[in-house]
């Protein structure tokens, strides 16, 4: 009744809209915490550089938040429009988790965000700081619910199947399912890392153009400290996440490693490079390092990891894709660790602010955190296939019964609209970045005085009177 082609289109559409969407919340999560830190430091040290940076980044935060809201509206409906069998089958669990996410986001937008963006001159410093902190915590609570839902789909527990549908038994077990702590930590830190490199790259851009101010230096310095500390933590968390996946979704790990079969009791090598071929059931052009696979994944020199051929053909995720998406993520991760360390080495002499090679590196690494995050999501989501709820419902049985015509129309619409609308939005964000942080003498003693002409909405936090030709 419904062929593979329609399923492929439905999957492409979801992948496209969710990939676009996740970029904005990731930056929102990172910037919200960054802003809380900046405001806290300003209140503590009375160093106005922090306050100038707060005003600069809060405008970019606001535009980014607005784009997240617009692209998120689509997501709340797509589960039903495109994946109605899934919604009916698992809706009694994934539905409430999404409801909580929306309630949290709604709550945030209804209250603290307004105070944070528009209340600088209207409420006391303490209350304003409290609002910023609440927004930061709120973004993390939103992350909590979405990751709980996704993790439950990866490692479901706390339910029973009644009449062919999922019935929740124990909400604590559902939320705190086995992969949830790892996934939540990995994603939250990914958001911090992505934001650190976005901030660092913005600073590098200004320094390369000779806009060498104390605010720009401060933001580069903070971004590099963040990278230095958080990137290695992310590597450790990622490793633990991998071990957790090995335990609960061994087929995913086998596919990531392009590992087809175990020879006798030989330790599992690590395939550094190769092209896994799903038809031929082998990894072509493989360059292997003996023992390393066992060492990384079992932390031993003799244990084997399960091989792809030990899973029925119809239960194998696409290794060609996730072998590479995983390597993109891990490779960028290592590069980011390196950038942090390099920053530390160059810091003593102040070369981080002057060395043009280093600044160019930081500039180009601006999107690295976001790309790594997308690659990571591709790995874990494609690696969950052929299941939508792991071991319980296959993706092929989850989709709505739409025709190829309908899906082609909607996919084309989304592609056209997302590229046109979000290109303008992202371009606008970049213009804001390019304006650079101003010291508060330049924007008047009141600092944030755009209340005069601005509606109290996130996208309008910057007035841009001086910038009428932005779009």
């Amino acid at each position: 009744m419904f062929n593979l082609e329609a399923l492929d289109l439905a999957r492409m559409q979801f992948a496209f809209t969710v990939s676009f969407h996740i970029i904005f919340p990731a930056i929102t999560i990172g910037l919200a915490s960054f802003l809380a830190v900046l405001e806290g430091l300003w209140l503590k040290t009375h160093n106005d550089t922090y306050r100038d940076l707060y005003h600069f980044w809060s405008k970019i935060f606001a535009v980014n938040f607005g784009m997240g809201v617009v692209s998120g509206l689509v997501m709340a409906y797509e589960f039903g429009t495109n994946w109605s069998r899934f919604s009916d089958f698992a809706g009694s669990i994934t539905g409430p988790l999404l409801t909580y996410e929306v309630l949290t986001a709604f709550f945030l937008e209804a209250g603290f965000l307004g105070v944070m963006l528009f209340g600088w001159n209207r409420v006391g410093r303490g209350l304003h700081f409290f609002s910023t902190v609440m927004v930061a915590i709120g973004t993390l609570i939103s992350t909590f619910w979405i990751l709980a839902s996704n993790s439950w789909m990866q490692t479901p527990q706390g339910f029973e199947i009644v009449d062919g549908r999922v019935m929740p038994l124990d909400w604590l077990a559902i939320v705190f399912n086995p992969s949830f702590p790892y996934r939540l930590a990995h994603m939250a830190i990914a958001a911090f890392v992505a934001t650190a490199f976005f901030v660092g790259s913005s600073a590098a851009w200004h320094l390369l153009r000779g806009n060498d101010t104390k605010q720009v230096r401060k933001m580069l310095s903070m971004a590099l400290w963040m990278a230095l500390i958080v990137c290695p933590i992310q590597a450790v968390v990622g490793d633990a996440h991998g071990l957790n996946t090995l335990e609960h979704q061994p087929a995913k790990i086998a596919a990531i490693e392009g590992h087809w079969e175990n020879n006798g009791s030989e330790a599992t090598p690590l395939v550094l490079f190769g092209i896994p071929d799903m038809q031929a059931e082998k990894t072509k052009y493989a360059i292997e390092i003996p023992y390393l696979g066992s060492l990384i994944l079992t932390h031993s020199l003799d244990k084997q990891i399960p091989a792809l051929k030990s899973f029925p053909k119809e239960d194998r995720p696409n290794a060609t894709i996730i072998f590479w998406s995983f390597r993109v993520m891990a490779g960028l991760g290592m590069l980011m660790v390196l950038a942090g360390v390099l920053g530390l080495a160059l810091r003593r002499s102040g070369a981080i602010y002057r060395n043009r090679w280093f600044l160019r590196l930081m500039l180009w690494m601006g999107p690295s955190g976001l790309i790594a995050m997308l690659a990571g999501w591709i790995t874990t989501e494609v690696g969950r296939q052929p299941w939508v709820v792991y071991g319980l419902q296959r993706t092929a049985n989850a989709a709505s019964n739409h025709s190829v015509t309908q899906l082609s129309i909607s996919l084309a619409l989304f592609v056209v609209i997302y590229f046109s609308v979000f290109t303008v939005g992202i371009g606008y964000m970049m213009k804001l970045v390019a304006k650079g942080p101003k010291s508060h003498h330049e924007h008047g003693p009141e600092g944030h005085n755009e209340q005069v002409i601005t509606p109290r909405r996130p996208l309008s936090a910057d007035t841009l009177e001086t910038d009428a030709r932005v779009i």
Partner: protein
Amino acid sequence: MGIQGIDLSLIWGVIIAFGVMMYVIMDGFDLGLGILFPLIPDAKERDVMMNTVAPVWDGNETWLVLGGAALYGAFPLAYSVILEALYLPLILMLCGLIFRGVAFEFRFKASPEKRHIWDMAFIGGSLLATFSQGVVIGTYIVGIPVVERQFAGGSWDWLAPFPLFCGVGLIVAYALLGSTWLLVKTEGMLESRMRLFTRPLAWLLLAVIGVICVWTPILHPEIATRWFGHAHLVVFGALALLALLAMFGLLKTLRQRHTHWPFAFTLMLVFLGYIGLAFSIWPNILPPSISLWEAASPATSQLFILIGALFILPIILMYTVWSYYVFRGKVRIGDGYH
């Protein structure tokens, strides 16, 4: 069905119905402005129109997200079937809302030469979103066939005369909400212009409601029995009477050049129409045959989200009231916001 005698499905049915009503009323006048935009060519007056809702429109739109997510959590069967059945109209609605939403922001930031692009996005987005919502409501009233918990109709079922008529009807309703909203919020030329538009729009809406009241029972014998059965005849008679009174009040206060009453009577008209619709399909959440209780998620799920909703919804409502209070009063040319 319930825990300790509490009918959770009923509570959730009321919460979702309330949320959708909040959406229809509040985003109704936002979208109405987009519909009226082509009639007001002056750029300054257009600025004023947009500024009357600029501080509140995205809060208004969030009720739609809440409605969708709450339906998913509390009635996953209804969520999956309705959204599948109305695939293209809903996608078109989302596309319309994206354009409308970004137009709000980018219009003020665009250079004067490019502003007309965002005006077009605002008009087109508002019309598309409104029309699609009307089609959704119309298809919903006609009924969505379900077999074994799955949508059993065709992909293009919504492309029928009645839903399309409802699409046009909703454009009229939102335009009236928009024009009476502007009576409250504007002055001078713009206000007089709106006074001029409101009268024909009101008559048009009355005609639309009349057509729907005749057409629905013809399409839907069950609704006919319900409407004209003696238990409900009183209710529907009262609703019809109240609607006529509201219409009378609207026209009268319009003539007397009141600023606030026409909007209040329009709200009453829309509210009565909404209540009439709710009574017609009650207690089904998926007309023609699936009730709230049959579509409900397990009691544990409904209870789980009810805890959060009871905590958060009152805060959202208080905040909504507060922000309308803060931005009360007329908006003038050259005013920005506040």
